[in-house]
């Protein structure tokens, strides 16, 4: 909008350039002391000095963290700053009289980074506490294990008779003392989980682990205190501590992996506190926090901003982008009296809206509720290891009991039972799955695939159907210029000139088609030659197009009024065929010059992905909230049959389709990105969020693909199969080991040192086998099923 607009703008409509200050306005809202409590704590009693936690985005290395630290430290009123580039956080201690948060944000924004308040600091502190506790438990287990092994070494290596009994006793005592911290402190999580399982009458892997630990420690303690007693003098402290150490290693790795994936998701979910402009009773506009809104408030929404509540437009007309809510790829027209939805974006002109529903009753909240319900209904797949472990545990206990009853000599019988329980240590079994899945997840993370839930890797191998979202998943979230057709008779123009003239007009517009023109123009001419061409009176007419007056030289045509927009607006004959919404005309006073046709931009690997999925025998369905026509057009390009298309689907429709497929007994993989996919992502057997997806979708998905390179989906599938192969190998090994050792223990042929050694080695073997998964596959996997 320029100053010479023939139609006077309503006095409530500010010039377009002010929208860029919107971000600065949000920062000013942080200066109010009431806002500080969310991300800061007072350091002294008078609340004059505060400590704040902030997130920093855009830092790529340690030097960036240094720069941020030094810049902030130089600001007046800032007493100390600590920036961590790994955690992407800053802690600032500052004086409330001399410094303001908006100053820090502005100073850092000038450097090119982005600061935002860390409102999750409380949660983060708790997470940090748990992580530190786990780390300490692991370190305790590790050090004690090493020391206990040193004490156990003489018993293994010495010739029988060369160690005097009192030295032996001393070593056993020392091992006992150092095993106490491991059992009482490091192994806490296992005992707590096993106790909880007992109370809930469930069996998970922690129960046999806890049982094994207790029995092993019990027998070894008795042997330490009463070496002449009936239980013998064999101790197993070395196996005990090593076992705890390995299990904790698995847990610690899992925690770090979760932290790493959570870190990249957190960055997307952090925003400045949402502020809106509300009209006061005297007609002025004040900026308030979004959560202070009430029903009936009148808000001003500028182009580029999102609507924060459902409501009705009371003044102005504009186009809105609802693609993240509904999948609709075209902007929709909204007049006075039309409804607007929370979460959609205002594309074109400033408007006034009246708030109709807030919070839980908005459409956004309804989708969230649907998603939470779907998460509860998600089918539970019994994991392979659990299915094997349960009968195994019962068998072992039954065997031990049988041994005790069947032996004539009760003491020897008890000893044999103990040997059975010790040797059938659930080590290998409990480590089999987590070690493999963790190694896989770590390797996948290095390839760019973030696995949020490890069980998804196992479930992925049983999937037989794939549901794909269209907008944003298979297509990039933008339109692309496909063709330029010159009108007959316009000899002075070339397609290139037509595109450049269109770009000149489109510069000031947010409309997706204008953006598409500019992207294509910048791709062809990176130096943007049209930026020097001057235009007067540029106006964007809602629903019709752009127009402006050319001035100065450099223009290909004469001094003229240029128009860019729909067919009728530009005086072109409207086409009977083709999709009206995706054609734009360029015209001057003499008539139409050129027609631009647009299409959705398919991601490059979409075609290959669909071909591979088909070859692998998976059934593919395309579900989209977009109109049937655009879905059909895309399906044609991809070669999908008509029964695989589902257009015009609301979130409930998508969920109903998923439930129908699951009722048929199919296992479904859902790949999506938008808010309307969140319910399906919550209930699908395996779910994947692709690209720059909505934070809510990412929070529900089992796997996140931040770079949207669809080829990685096949890499993931192959890696999941490798993982399950290794898991099965581990389980087979555990079974074989037990099948050999249990009879030996039953008949009393297994010396106790062999039982302990077996326990330790079986764990080691399982872990090393799983470590194979952190290397790339030996051969490039052929694309067979």
């Amino acid at each position, binding site marked *: 909008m320029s100053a010479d607009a023939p139609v006077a703008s309503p006095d409530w409509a500010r010039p377009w350039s002010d929208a860029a200050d919107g971000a600065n306005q949000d920062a000013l809202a942080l200066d109010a002391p009431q806002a500080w409590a969310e991300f800061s704590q007072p350091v002294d009693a008078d609340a004059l000095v505060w400590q704040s936690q902030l997130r920093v985005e855009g830092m790529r*290395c*340690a*030097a960036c*963290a*240094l720069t941020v630290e*030094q810049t902030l430290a130089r600001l007046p009123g800032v007493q100390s700053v600590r920036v*961590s*580039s*790994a*955690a992407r956080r800053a802690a600032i201690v500052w004086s409330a009289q001399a410094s303001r948060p908006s100053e820090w944000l502005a100073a850092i924004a000038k450097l090119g980074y982005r600061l935002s308040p860390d409102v999750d600091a409380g949660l983060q502190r708790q997470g*940090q506490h748990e992580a*530190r506790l786990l*780390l*300490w438990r692991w*370190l*305790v287990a590790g*050090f*004690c294990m090493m*020391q206990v092994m040193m*004490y156990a070494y003489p018993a293994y290596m010495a010739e029988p008779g060369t160690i*005097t009994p009192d*030295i032996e006793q*001393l*070593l056993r005592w*020392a091992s006992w*003392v*150092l095993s106490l*911290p491991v059992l009482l402190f490091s192994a806490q999580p296992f005992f707590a989980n096993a106790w909880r399982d007992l109370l809930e009458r469930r069996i998970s892997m922690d129960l046999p682990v806890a049982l094994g630990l207790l029995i092993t420690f019990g027998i070894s303690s008795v042997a330490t205190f009463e070496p002449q007693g009936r239980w013998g003098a064999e101790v197993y402290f070395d196996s005990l501590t090593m076992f705890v150490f390995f299990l904790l290693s698995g847990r610690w790795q899992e925690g770090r992996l979760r932290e790493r994936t959570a870190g990249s998701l957190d960055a997307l979910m952090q925003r400045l506190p949402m502020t809106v402009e509300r009209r006061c009773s005297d007609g002025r506009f004040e900026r308030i926090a979004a959560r202070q809104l009430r029903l009936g408030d009148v808000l001003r929404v500028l182009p580029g901003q999102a609507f924060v509540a459902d409501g009705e437009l009371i003044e102005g007309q504009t186009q809105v982008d609802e693609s993240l809510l509904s999948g609709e790829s075209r902007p929709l027209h909204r007049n006075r009296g039309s409804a607007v939805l929370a979460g959609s974006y205002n594309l074109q002109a400033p408007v006034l809206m009246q708030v109709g529903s807030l919070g839980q009753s908005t459409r956004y909240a309804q989708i969230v509720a649907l998603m939470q319900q779907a998460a509860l209904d998600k089918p539970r797949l019994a994991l392979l290891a659990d299915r094997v472990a349960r009968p195994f545990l019962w068998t072992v206990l039954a065997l031990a009991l049988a041994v005790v009853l069947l032996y004539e000599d009760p003491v020897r019988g008890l000893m044999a039972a103990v040997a059975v329980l010790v040797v059938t240590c659930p080590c290998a079994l409990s480590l089999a799955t987590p070690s493999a899945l963790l190694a896989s997840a770590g390797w996948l993370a290095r390839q760019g695939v973030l696995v949020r839930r490890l069980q998804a890797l196992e479930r992925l191998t049983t999937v037989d159907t794939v549901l794909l979202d269209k907008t944003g998943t298979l297509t990039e979230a933008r339109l692309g210029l496909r063709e330029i057709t010159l009108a007959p008779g316009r000899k002075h123009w070339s397609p290139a000139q037509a595109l450049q003239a269109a770009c000149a007009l489109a510069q000031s517009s947010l409309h997706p088609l204008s953006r598409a023109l500019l992207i294509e123009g910048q791709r062809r001419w990176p130096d943007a030659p049209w930026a020097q061409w001057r235009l007067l009176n540029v106006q964007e007419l809602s629903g019709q197009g752009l127009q402006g007056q050319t001035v100065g030289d450099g223009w290909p045509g004469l001094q003229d009024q240029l128009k860019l927009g729909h067919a009728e607006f530009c005086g072109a004959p409207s086409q009977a065929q083709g999709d009206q919404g995706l054609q734009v005309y360029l015209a001057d006073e003499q008539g139409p010059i050129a027609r631009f046709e647009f299409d959705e931009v398919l991601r490059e690997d979409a075609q290959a992905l669909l071909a591979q999925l088909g070859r692998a025998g998976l059934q593919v369905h395309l579900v989209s909230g977009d109109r049937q026509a655009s879905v059909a057009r895309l399906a044609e390009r991809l070669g999908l049959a008509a029964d695989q298309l589902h257009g015009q689907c609301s979130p409930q429709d998508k969920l109903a389709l998923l439930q129908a497929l699951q009722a048929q007994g199919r296992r479904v993989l859902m790949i999506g990105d938008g808010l309307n996919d969140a319910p399906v992502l919550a209930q699908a057997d395996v779910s994947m969020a692709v690209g720059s997806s909505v934070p809510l979708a990412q929070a529900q998905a089992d796997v996140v693909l931040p770079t949207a390179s669809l080829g990685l989906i096949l890499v993931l599938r192959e890696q999941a199969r490798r993982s399950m192969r290794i898991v099965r190998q581990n389980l087979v090994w555990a079974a074989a080991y037990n099948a050999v050792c249990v009879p030996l223990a039953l008949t009393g042929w297994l010396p106790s040192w062999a039982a302990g050694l077996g326990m330790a080695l079986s764990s080691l073997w399982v872990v090393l086998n799983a470590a194979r998964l952190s290397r790339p596959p030996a051969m490039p996997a052929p694309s067979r099923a």
Partner: protein
Amino acid sequence: MDILFLLVPFSVVLALLIVGLLAWAVWSGQFEDVDKEGERILDDQA
């Protein structure tokens, strides 16, 4: 080998001391950002 009667209990005490030291290290946040300490050497000013 009588010296072992001194050394072994001493090593137990030492191991427990080390574990206590590690606790201090973990809880004072020294393991939070392990990479930063290595890069601190490249800092010009601090």
